Every structure is written in structure tokens, then in C-alpha cells.
């Protein structure tokens, strides 16, 4: 952790915190705040790290022993961003990669320094793509200052000096010095107003599949996740929130468990939660399970999956109001007068993130300070939540980020931080670790939103697709999470993957197109679930594309290609997977192929699967090929892992997932009812990276969009059966 430095300057900032401005905004383009790089201060007031080493600037600290500490504001949750961002800084810095370590600044420090590290939010596949510019500038600026410091010492022009791996050479004389030796002097130099960044084709550290920086501790048990932190005198809390979302605590009988071993206190948490605080978490959980609690479940207790499905189905009726997200021509008229029509209705269920590490946060609250230790995808959102829950001013609050045992969007939310602060506030001076049970985690998620979709396609007499009507009905994430991002009530993110333009645009040109969303918001809270709205939109569109190809009597790939002439980047990744999987040659006997493409998070992705099916219901996935064009690839080894992991996450949801609602609550409580793929079910993923440059796309999420439709289209090819409702377990289809 960094100490507070430059106290006077930093602490007197009265920073206006707007809670909403910190809320993670994974779904929308440009949802992050405008960020200026406020590179701090040359001059004599050097900012120092914990051990006294000087900051060359906010991103780079160099120690006398040549260790290079690179500050990372975004969160590492497995996706490799920590390593990738360090590569980008190190590339411009021209330091010795083997000397690089990383450090998280705290949100409190960032706010106190006018958000010098920019946005902390790590969602929407934004970790690298929306900070690459200023972190590279941070590295380049530091390099210029370090070289200038050496030049000053030698009394030579900086233009006569060059640097390689942290060793500065005065070319004419051959004299050398090192970053570690000049860092102190460099920290006092006025930073250059502008720096030129390298052309990515000249990269030597970035762009390479370097090993992650956080691996060793993850193989020895030493890595400290949120759930692992220990503080002196710490107590442990287990919590139950009202099982019906929106319900409240009516009463609880603390006396019944007061004598159970280890129990220290029973506290109400907000309107809807009860927590037991004990010496150990096991004691807390055991006592909580024995605690009589009466809930006021409210009207939501009448809601079930059936009532939600009925309500959403009504939204498919064209007579109902809907927001138009994308249109050209007159789809309704063209469909009415068409020679041939195809119509299908699909649905996609709620999904839980099911991070391996359940939600948790540890808080030490006193009237003077509120400190939080947790895994979070957005340190600033956690900070804002702690501010609000503690009632303390910004300079008395801070968040110490720990490793996340998975995020996938769930840890961009701050409900667990608020709860932990609320508990700790009732026991001032005692650190409290709140850990959710798996059951609490499964049943109090921020679920992948539930939707249905009616798709209608129309052909002319020559089997040309002349119209497509894409009518979505269901839940908006932004309505619940960031209502200020709605546009006259419309959720623009609902059209991810089928939008007209932008970072998640449709890859097909249809003369008459109508894409609309009848918003229906059930009481089950939605959240950003890896891939977000790209997931269901890609399933609906890409499965239906195969249905249209069938109706037109055309090959699914050829049918798509004809509609993609004006979308060369979408087409390029589709062609790449088609070539790699061998689409133009027959599959092995008994093996069937499916293909899909989508754009999301600024990247173009496509996937193809080869499967065989036994008894019409047992699927073996033999092969997966996936292509992505994210513009630039910072670490190909990690991009490959994100692509493969997207298939595991997406296919787990397709086969085994699906959260159902009964009596207003989620039925699935653990991995026995919300299962996840194992190694025997997952083939190797062959990835084809085709970065075309000129733009920066994300990689953590887009690929998940093509995982399910590639397999579903292959399943149709194998069986002639089109599945339109998920998960597959409810159709009695499973892995072979």
C-alpha cells in the first residue's frame, strides 16, 4: 500500500464525490468519466513511495536497486490486465522488464491527488483499451525525464543519450548510468508537455506473450484474496439478506443464538439483512443458520419464472410500446408484403456470476476512519460506497484492493461493501470480515438480465433477405444500475451487438431493418455479467441467421457473407474461423459444424465449433476455433486465455446455468444446481488473432457472444432440431 504523501497539497482538496460517477458502467461506450492525465509536478516537492523511493511520476517509481514499480489503477481479476498495463508502461519507459513489479494505488490517494490515476473501473473490457493512451504516456514521460536527468548530470544534450533496458548511454562518449541512479534527480524535472508514443510495430515488451506477473503466489497459496485477509482482533460476519429481493427484515430472535459458541453480536444490516458476528466465520455461519428470522417478503414473493416469462412474452407483441435502437427502411411494411417470412421466438434466462470466491469485504470503522479491504472491479465505486455507508468525509475513508477470486462483472457492484461497512459501524474499533456463503452469493446476485426475442425475416421471390425485425423484450441493466445513462427511457446498451454503429455494431446490412426493445424490468436485480447484452443478442441473431439461411436454402456462412459486404472487419474474423475450421471441406464423419460472429467492446469476434451428438441429446464438443480483431494485442498469451475462458463461461451458462425464480427468490443455491463445466467437457480452443490496428478493442468479454450460437448452430446441423430456450439442461440436453 502507498502511504499518503505530500499531505498538505493532497489532503486539502475538497473533492466532490458523486456516487453515480463511480458506478461501474460496463455496457456503454464512453461510460467512464473524461480523464485527463494530471501528471504530477516536477519541481522540488518529490512524491515518495512507502520506502522513500521517488515517484518519477504517478505511474512509475524507481528504486535505487533498479526495481521499477509500475502503478496500476485497474483491477486484476484473472484477465491479465495487471500484466498487460505494466507491459504498456514498461514499453514506453524502456526499462528492464525483469525488474518490474506492480502496485495498486488506493482510491483515497487517487481522489486526494485529483484522480491522477484516472478511472479505476475494470468492466466492459475497458481495462486496457480505455487507459492504454495515458499509461503509455506515463511511461514515455518518465523515460524522457530519466534521460534528461542523466544528460543534466553529464552536462550534455539529452538528444545525445539513448536508453535500453533501463541503462542510459551517452552515445558520443559511451558513458552509462542507470534509471536507479538518476531517478531522484528525474523526479525533480519538469515533465515534458508532450511525448510521442511508439508505433506498436516497434514494440518489444508490449505485444509479446510475456508471463503474468502474479503467477507464483497463485501456485503456492500465498496470494491474499479478500476472503483471506487477517487483521489484529478481527471478527467474522455471516449474513442473510431477505431471500425475496426488495423484502425486509420483520424481526429476529438474537437471544436464541446468544449462547452459541463464538457468537459476539447479532446485527441488522440496512432494511433487509441480518448478520451474526463471531470469532470465526464458521461459528458465525452456524449461528446464523440457527437464528430465527421473520421476513416481510412483500408483493415480490408472488413473482415466479412463469409470471416473468408471461410478462416478457407480452412485450413481443408489436402493439406494445418499444424503444427503437436501430432501423433503416420499413421492416414492418416489407415483412407484410414479402414472398416468404420466417419467425422465431427465443429466450435467455437469468445467470449468476458464480465467482469462485464469494463476495466479501473487511472493514475497520472508527469515528475517525473507515478502511475497507476487498476485491473490487472498481476501487472508486467501493470507495464511494464506503463514503456513503460510513458517513465520513473522503479523507477519512480508503479502500485497499486485494486480489479478486473472479469478477466477471459481479465485483463492479458494491452491495457487499455497503453491508460490511454497516456491520462494522455497529462495532467501532473492531475489524469485521464479512464473507457471504455460496448460498448467499447464488441467491443475491446481480444477474444476467432476462430477455425474450421475436425475430422475423422476410425474403423476396429470389430468396434475398429484404427485411429483419428484431424485437427484444425484457430487462434493462442500466434501468436498475445506472438510470442516468438511459436516453429518454431507452437503454442504449440493450442493443449491444445489434446497434447501428459504435463499439458493438451489427455486422449485416439488411434493406429494411428494425431493432427494438420492449423494456420489462422484473424485481430480480440485473448486473453486468461477462459479455453483458452481447450474450443474448448474439445468440438470438446468430441462431436466427442460420434459420434464415436454411429458409433461403443457403449455406450459413455464404448466407452471412452476402449480408456483410459493408462490414469488412466483421467479415474478416468470420472468414478467419471458417478457414481455420475448414468450412469449405467436409467435417469428419459424424461431426457437425456451427459458426457465429458478433462485435462487442470495440472488437470483432467469430467462433466455430465441431460437435457430435449421441441419442439426440448428448453433445461432445470436439473442436472450437475462435478469431478476434481487437485492433492491437498487448499480450497474445493472455488474449488466448481470455478467448478460451469465454467459451468455458459461455458454454457453462448455456448447458448448466439458468437461475429460476420461485416465490420471488432465486431457486439455485450452489454448484449442485448451478453447475459449471469441468475439464472433461472442454476441448482445446484454437484462437486466431487478426489485429488490424487503428483502434483499441477489449478482449475479456466479446468472445463469449459467439460461444453458445456456434454450438447451437452445430447442434442444429447434427440433429435438425433448433433450440430456442435455455439452459440446455432444461431441454434434457447435456455433455456426452
Amino acid at each position, binding site marked *: 500500500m502507498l502511504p499518503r504523501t505530500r499531505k498538505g497539497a493532497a489532503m486539502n482538496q475538497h473533492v466532490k464525490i458523486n456516487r453515480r460517477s463511480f458506478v461501474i458502467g460496463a455496457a456503454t461506450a464512453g461510460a467512464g468519466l473524461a480523464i485527463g492525465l494530471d501528471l504530477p509536478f516536477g519541481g522540488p516537492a518529490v512524491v515518495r513511495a512507502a520506502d522513500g523511493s521517488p515517484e518519477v511520476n504517478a505511474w512509475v517509481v524507481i528504486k535505487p536497486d533498479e526495481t521499477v514499480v509500475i502503478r496500476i489503477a485497474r483491477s486484476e481479476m484473472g484477465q*491479465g490486465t495487471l500484466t498487460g498495463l505494466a507491459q504498456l508502461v514498461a514499453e514506453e519507459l524502456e526499462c528492464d522488464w525483469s525488474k518490474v513489479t506492480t502496485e495498486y494505488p488506493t482510491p483515497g490517494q487517487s481522489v486526494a491527488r485529483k484522480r491522477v490515476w484516472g478511472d479505476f473501473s475494470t468492466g466492459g473490457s475497458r481495462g486496457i483499451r480505455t487507459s492504454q493512451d495515458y499509461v503509455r504516456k506515463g511511461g514515455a514521460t518518465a523515460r524522457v525525464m530519466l534521460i534528461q536527468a542523466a544528460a543534466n548530470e553529464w552536462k550534455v544534450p539529452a538528444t545525445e543519450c539513448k536508453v535500453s533496458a533501463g541503462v542510459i548511454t551517452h552515445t558520443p562518449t559511451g558513458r552509462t548510468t542507470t534509471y536507479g541512479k538518476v531517478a531522484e534527480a528525474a523526479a525533480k524535472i519538469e515533465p515534458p508537455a508532450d511525448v510521442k508514443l511508439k508505433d506498436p510495430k516497434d514494440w518489444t515488451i508490449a505485444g509479446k506473450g510475456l508471463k503474468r506477473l502474479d503467477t507464483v503466489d497463485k501456485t503456492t497459496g500465498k496470494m491474499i484474496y479478500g476472503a483471506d485477509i487477517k487483521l489484529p482482533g478481527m471478527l467474522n460476519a455471516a449474513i442473510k439478506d431477505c431471500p425475496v429481493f426488495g423484502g425486509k427484515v420483520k424481526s429476529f430472535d438474537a437471544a436464541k443464538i446468544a449462547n452459541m459458541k463464538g457468537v459476539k453480536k447479532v446485527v441488522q444490516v440496512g432494511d433487509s439483512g441480518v448478520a451474526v458476528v463471531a470469532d470465526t466465520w464458521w461459528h458465525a455461519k452456524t449461528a446464523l443458520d440457527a437464528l430465527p428470522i421473520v421476513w416481510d417478503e412483500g408483493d415480490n414473493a408472488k413473482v415466479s419464472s412463469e409470471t416473468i416469462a408471461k410478462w416478457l412474452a407480452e412485450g413481443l407483441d408489436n402493439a406494445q410500446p418499444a424503444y427503437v435502437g436501430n432501423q433503416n427502411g420499413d421492416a414492418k411494411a416489407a415483412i407484410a408484403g414479402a414472398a416468404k417470412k420466417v419467425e422465431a421466438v427465443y429466450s435467455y434466462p437469468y445467470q449468476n456470476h458464480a465467482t469462485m470466491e464469494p463476495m466479501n469485504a473487511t472493514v475497520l470503522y472508527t469515528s475517525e476512519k473507515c478502511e475497507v479491504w476487498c476485491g473490487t472491479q472498481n476501487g472508486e465505486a467501493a470507495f464511494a460506497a464506503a463514503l456513503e455507508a460510513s458517513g465520513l468525509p473522503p479523507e477519512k475513508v480508503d479502500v485497499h484492493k486485494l486480489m479478486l477470486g473472479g469478477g466477471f462483472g459481479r465485483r463492479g457492484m458494491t452491495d457487499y461493501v455497503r453491508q460490511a461497512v454497516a456491520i462494522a459501524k455497529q462495532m467501532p474499533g473492531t475489524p469485521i470480515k464479512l464473507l457471504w456463503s455460496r448460498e448467499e452469493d447464488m441467491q443475491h446476485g446481480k444477474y444476467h438480465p432476462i430477455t425474450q426475442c421475436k425475430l422475423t425475416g422476410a425474403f423476396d421471390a429470389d430468396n434475398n433477405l429484404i427485411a429483419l425485425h428484431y424485437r427484444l423484450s425484457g430487462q434493462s441493466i442500466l434501468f436498475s444500475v445506472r438510470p442516468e445513462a438511459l436516453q429518454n427511457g431507452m437503454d442504449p446498451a440493450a442493443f449491444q451487438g445489434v446497434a447501428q454503429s459504435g463499439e458493438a455494431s451489427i455486422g449485416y446490412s439488411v434493406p429494411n431493418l428494425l431493432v427494438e426493445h420492449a423494456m420489462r424490468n422484473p424485481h430480480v436485480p440485473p448486473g453486468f455479467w461477462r459479455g453483458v447484452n452481447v450474450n443474448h443478442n448474439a445468440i438470438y441473431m446468430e441462431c436466427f441467421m442460420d434459420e434464415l439461411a436454411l429458409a433461403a436454402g443457403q449455406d450459413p456462412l455464404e448466407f452471412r457473407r452476402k449480408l456483410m459486404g459493408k462490414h469488412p472487419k466483421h467479415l474478416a474474423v468470420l472468414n478467419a474461423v471458417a478457414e481455420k475450421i475448414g468450412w469449405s471441406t467436409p467435417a469428419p464423419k459424424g461431426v457437425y459444424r456451427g459458426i457465429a460472429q458478433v462485435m462487442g467492446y470495440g472488437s470483432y469476434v467469430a467462433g466455430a465449433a465441431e460437435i457430435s451428438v449421441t441419442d439426440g441429446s448428448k453433445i461432445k464438443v470436439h473442436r472450437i476455433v475462435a478469431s478476434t480483431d481487437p485492433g492491437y494485442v498487448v499480450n497474445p498469451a493472455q488474449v488466448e486465455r481470455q478467448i478460451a475462458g469465454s467459451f468455458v463461461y459461455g458454454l457453462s451458462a448455456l448447458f448448466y446455468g439458468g437461475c429460476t425464480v420461485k416465490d420471488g427468490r432465486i431457486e439455485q443455491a450452489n454448484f449442485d444446481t448451478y453447475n459449471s463445466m469441468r475439464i472433461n467437457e472442454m476441448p482445446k480452443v484454437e484462437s486466431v488473432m487478426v489485429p488490424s490496428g487503428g483502434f483499441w478493442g477489449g478482449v475479456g468479454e466479446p468472445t463469449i457472444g459467439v460461444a453458445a450460437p456456434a454450438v447451437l448452430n452445430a447442434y442444429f446441423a447434427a440433429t435438425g432440431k433448433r433450440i430456442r430456450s435455455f439452459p440446455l439442461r432444461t431441454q434434457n440436453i447435456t455433455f456426452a
Partner: protein
Amino acid sequence: MDWTNQGTAMASLKINGKTITVDVEDDTPLLWAIRENVGLTGTKYGCGIAQCGACTVHMDGVAMRSCGVTVGEAAGKEITTIEGLAAGGVLHKVQTAWIANDVPQCGYCQSGMIMAVAALLKDNPKPTDDDINDAITNICRCGTFQQVREAIHAAANA
């Protein structure tokens, strides 16, 4: 630190070669005794119902899901956790292969995954892909299976 006034329940556990006496009831899951009473947090809680494997340890050399074993059942057995896998400061070949193949993503499941694989290789030094499919049933939500498989073969050939 003993916060309780409700009496003590001492149990003796042999963990990573040391005998440790802890104040914990016999019916406590071994997982929680390891994490909270012994203080070794490399063994992770994932589900509590022996589904996910994040809590896998070795008990007398056999991979066990420690959330499903009580302290009473574990007493007297040789228990090895991820912290005890490296012998004499030298990493186990599975850990070495894990580092060489850059296996972990978030890493939360990997302690359990590594313990399961170490037990597999002890019984079956050269497992085939089918052997791996049968033996390794741990959940990894990040989806590291491709690297897990490659690293198992690498460790087997080390």
C-alpha cells in the same frame, strides 16, 4: 486469540508435518479449521458441499475436499495443504509446471487444482487425457482447463 467464554474443544491436527493443537469442535469442517484456526488461507472456500474442489487437500496422500471432512475425521491423519506441497523449500513439480505454463487466471481455484493434480500424478505418473478427464473434476470459472491439461502433461514429463 480465544474470544469465547463457552469452554474449549481442543483438537490435534497433523498439518504439513507439524502437529498443531487448535481450539475447535470435532464437527467443524476441516476447511474452516485449516483457514481460521490454523491460519493457512491457501486452501479456499468455494461451495462448502464438496462440489467445486477449491478446498482440496491431501489426507494421508489422498486428495480430499476439506469442506466435506470434519476435524474429528481428520485427527491423526497426515494432512498436506498447498502451503506444505513444496518440500524443503523446493517447489513441487506441479507448481513448477504451473508457473512455466502460466496456468492461473484469477487463481482462486488453483490451490485445489494443484493439490488434485499432485495426488493424480502420485498414483498415475503419466496420465493420458482420458485419465485427466476422469480424475480432475475441480471447477474453474475463469476456464483455465487448456493450460491445466498442458501443465499436467508437462509435470508428468518433468
